[in-house]
């Protein structure tokens, strides 16, 4: 790559108590692109970002943003980074404009420049009309947009977003996506985390998949999916199948020669998820139907799909992102709250 990477992370490690939150993450984020960190809850995405933003001091490893050594010169690093945390961090008693003015002052913008930047940012994110209202009267989407506006106010070269669309309605999410794409056209590098597959897939030029504090795959979404290969068929016995029935069906299908793998997806009403070795996977459906009929099971629906990023995750970790998320949320809380 001719251009120097906007963000370089080398062998980053961070431990909280007995939990190794980040366990040797290395990444290079090329400038002017959207780079996605994908992984289940508790995978170490947020801790990685917090180390980059100087909120957390890593145990070891090196970090650089726009050529600035983050650990050696944190203040210069802070100047090049715009950070928008997962939870909106707004003082709701202020008006939108007052919050942005505060933001301008803690980034030391001269007052004339601050005024134009604030007006521009409000305009850009569609908040001009409500700028004089207290933030507590804003909707969730407006608060997120204000948070984004604040993160962009000092014109950072790298924008770091932690789960930028969590809790947003579809329309707001689409707006944020369009806005982020627009930013990259201005040369801004966007590093974001998400545990929404489609968000990373749609948005990111490159993606790193993180699990248990390690990078388990990295590349463009297309390359990653191509590497996994195979065709996918999702088969439902009923709209919501009892688990015994799903198991019986899985056992029946597993013996078919073209079926490479069967996974029961609990999160989707025990639908059967099959990896099949066939040029046209739909041609295998009659054989499956016949096999199921022999054990007295019907088919409610069949869908075919290409490999997704979830399959990349599945191939690397043996579980789906959703399952990993569920496991993380049922495990004792291991996130350190600041």
């Amino acid at each position, binding site marked *: 790559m001719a251009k*120097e990477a906007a963000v370089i992370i080398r062998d980053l490690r961070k431990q909280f108590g007995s939990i190794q939150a980040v366990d040797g993450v290395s990444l290079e984020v090329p400038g002017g692109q959207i780079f996605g960190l994908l992984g289940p809850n508790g995978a170490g995405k947020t801790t990685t970002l917090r*180390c980059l*933003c*100087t*909120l*957390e*001091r890593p145990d070891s490893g090196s970090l650089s943003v*726009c*050529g*600035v*050594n983050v650990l*050696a*010169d*944190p*203040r*210069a690093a*802070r*100047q*090049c*980074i715009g*950070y928008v*945390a997962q*939870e*909106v*961090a*707004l*003082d709701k*008693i*202020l008006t939108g404009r*007052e919050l942005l*003015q*505060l*933001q301008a*002052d*803690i*980034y*030391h913008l001269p007052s004339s420049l601050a005024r134009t930047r604030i007006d521009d940012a409000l305009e850009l994110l569609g908040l001009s009309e409500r700028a004089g209202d*207290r933030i507590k009267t804003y909707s969730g989407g407006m608060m997120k947009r204000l948070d984004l506006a*604040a993160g962009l106010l000092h014109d950072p070269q790298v924008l770091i977003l932690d789960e930028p669309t969590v809790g947003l309605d579809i329309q707001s999410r689409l707006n944020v996506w369009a806005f982020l794409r627009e930013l990259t056209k201005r040369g801004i590098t966007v590093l974001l985390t998400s545990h929404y597959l489609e968000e990373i897939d749609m948005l990111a030029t490159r993606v790193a998949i993180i699990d248990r504090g390690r990078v388990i795959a990295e590349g463009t979404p297309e390359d990653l999916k191509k590497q996994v290969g195979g065709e996918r068929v999702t088969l439902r016995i009923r709209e919501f199948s009892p688990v015994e029935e799903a198991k019986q069906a899985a056992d029946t299908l597993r013996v078919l020669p073209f079926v490479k793998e069967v996974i029961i997806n609990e999160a989707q009403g025990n639908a059967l998820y099959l990896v099949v070795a066939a040029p046209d996977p739909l041609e295998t459906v009659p054989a499956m139907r016949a096999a199921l009929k022999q054990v007295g099971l019907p088919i409610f629906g069949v869908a075919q799909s290409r490999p997704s990023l979830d399959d990349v995750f599945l191939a690397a970790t043996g579980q789906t992102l959703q399952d990993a998320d569920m496991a993380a949320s049922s495990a004792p809380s291991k996130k350190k709250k*600041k």
Partner: protein
Amino acid sequence: MTSTTDKPTLSAQFQPSASNTGAEFLQETAALAKRLYIQLARRPSFFLGGIIQPLMFLVLFGALFAQAPKDTFGVGDAYTEFLAAGVIIFTAFGGALTAGLPLIFDREFGFLNRLLVAPLVSRSSIVLASSLFIVSTALAQTAAISVVSLLLGAHFAGGLTGVFVVGLVVSLLVFGFSALSIGLAFALPGHIEMLAAIFVLNLPLVFSSTALAPLRFMPTWLQVVACLNPLTYAIEPIRFLFIHKDWSFASTVLQAPWSSISLLTCLIVLVAFDILAIALVSTILKQKLA
């Protein structure tokens, strides 16, 4: 540290001259303080409560001890005259102890992260903004208490210079304790622990000072404790100024078990207390923040 990569604009941008740094520090401190004043204007109940409470103390305690034999408290006419200094410092101190509360909520709601990821010249601007804000509200409360105590029959003998000295004493004490409170807000896990700490510190420090009773009422061990308590060094000068017309910085305002202590010494003790508080808070900030 200068970056050696092909980013000359960057290094130029981050090597601000000394004057620039000073201006930037002022800008961030003023902005952080301004936020606190906006909060005060839109949510004044805590501040107003902080004025109403001491006024009630003044009236109730004043009435309670109105029948005490004259000269019991070493003042001529009214217990109010004795009490005013205690209530002023009690109030100012109580306010200073809560200085860290907004910060701990900022921590819990994530707002503090917004400040910590910003290229502040120094994070001490966060401490300074809160401390100056609390000092200014404490001075407003002091003024209100003084006016009401005058209406209740107390006299302030110390003159205009005396008024300034009272203001200085209150500011020094409040500055130190609000810095300590902000230090606690960084050190403690959450607002519940913070509230507990405030409860534990507030009244015991008041009762072990000369706020409510003169030193000579106390057993020797309590006298020693009171003379180690920074509150006493703020209360006694103010009390002296309320009563004495002919005061000077050399006047003995406090008879500690080991020596007499002058007004000037009290001021020096308070300044030393502030320096100690700032040193402690900077250590906590360095330890707690990445």
